């Protein structure tokens, strides 16, 4: 299965020289838990999550308005190519112990793929399968009624 339909292209970014307080405010405004840190050339310098901010800024007693993103982000970051499969992306998440991966196309940031998005996609497929099973039961019941009617007609 291809990774492409699961890639979130609506990504929120932060610069390495912006502050932790700015990053937190952006996460709140965008209702996201993760920002991609982009350097001045548009490359991916790292990733910063709400948990990074909690542990590395609040946990160390640092001032969020004085602390720079580049000092508390996670980087360099593991990424995947847009052409890779869903299985490859999941294996990378498992091996690296991360739940979000930047997706690159020709070396440039194309989007983000998150474990949550993959899970929701898979759950929908499971739900569709369950619905198909339920409808088959219903149709089998309908056939049983028809055969009963046919017997009575005879």
């Amino acid at each position: 299965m291809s990774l492409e339909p699961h890639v979130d292209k609506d990504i929120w970014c932060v610069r390495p020289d912006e502050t932790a307080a700015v990053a937190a405010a952006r996460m709140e405004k965008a209702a996201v838990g993760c920002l991609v840190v982009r350097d001045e050339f548009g490359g991916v310098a790292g990733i910063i999550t709400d948990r990074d901010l909690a542990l590395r800024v609040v946990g160390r007693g640092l001032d969020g308005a004085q602390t720079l993103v580049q000092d508390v982000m996670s980087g360099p970051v593991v990424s995947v190519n847009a052409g890779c499969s869903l299985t490859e992306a999941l294996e990378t998440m498992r091996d690296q112990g991360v739940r979000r991966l930047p997706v690159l196309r020709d070396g440039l940031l194309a989007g983000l793929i998150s474990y949550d998005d993959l899970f929701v996609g898979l759950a929908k497929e499971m739900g569709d399968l369950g619905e198909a099973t339920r409808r088959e039961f219903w149709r089998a019941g309908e056939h049983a009624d028809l055969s009963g009617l046919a017997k009575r007609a005879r």
Partner: protein
Amino acid sequence: MDLSSLCKSAPVSAAPDMHARHAAQEMGRLHIGCLPVVEDGRLVGMLTDRDLALRCLAGGLGSEVRVGEIMSRDVVTLPATAGLAEAAELMRDHVFRRLPIVDADGRLVGLVAADDLLRTLAREIGQMAEVVEEEMVREAAARAATEAGQ
């Protein structure tokens, strides 16, 4: 299966007068993203790593603020006798990924996370896949036997 088999025993909790900085250190040390907040043995709130990031940094309250001032007070609990489906429904309705489990006296027994539910469900789905695989093997054997008899 009820939730008591899923929830972590002896849950770690925070007190409302603990500093945010200390709560963040505990979350890091224990590799958890959420602390139930307990006062006089009673569950009074929940604090997540996201609460710390947004309220201390985006909200500008700093790391010395007390947990009681930044925790979520609208806590939804489940009895230990509840089932997996009930937990999943509550998580869906309230958009929480972790639910505190309490006993009949309202005391905290443990936490159940969406990840725990997923692992249990995945095991059950794996068992269902095994039933299908076994059936396919048996059918193939039966088909081969029929063909050999012809």
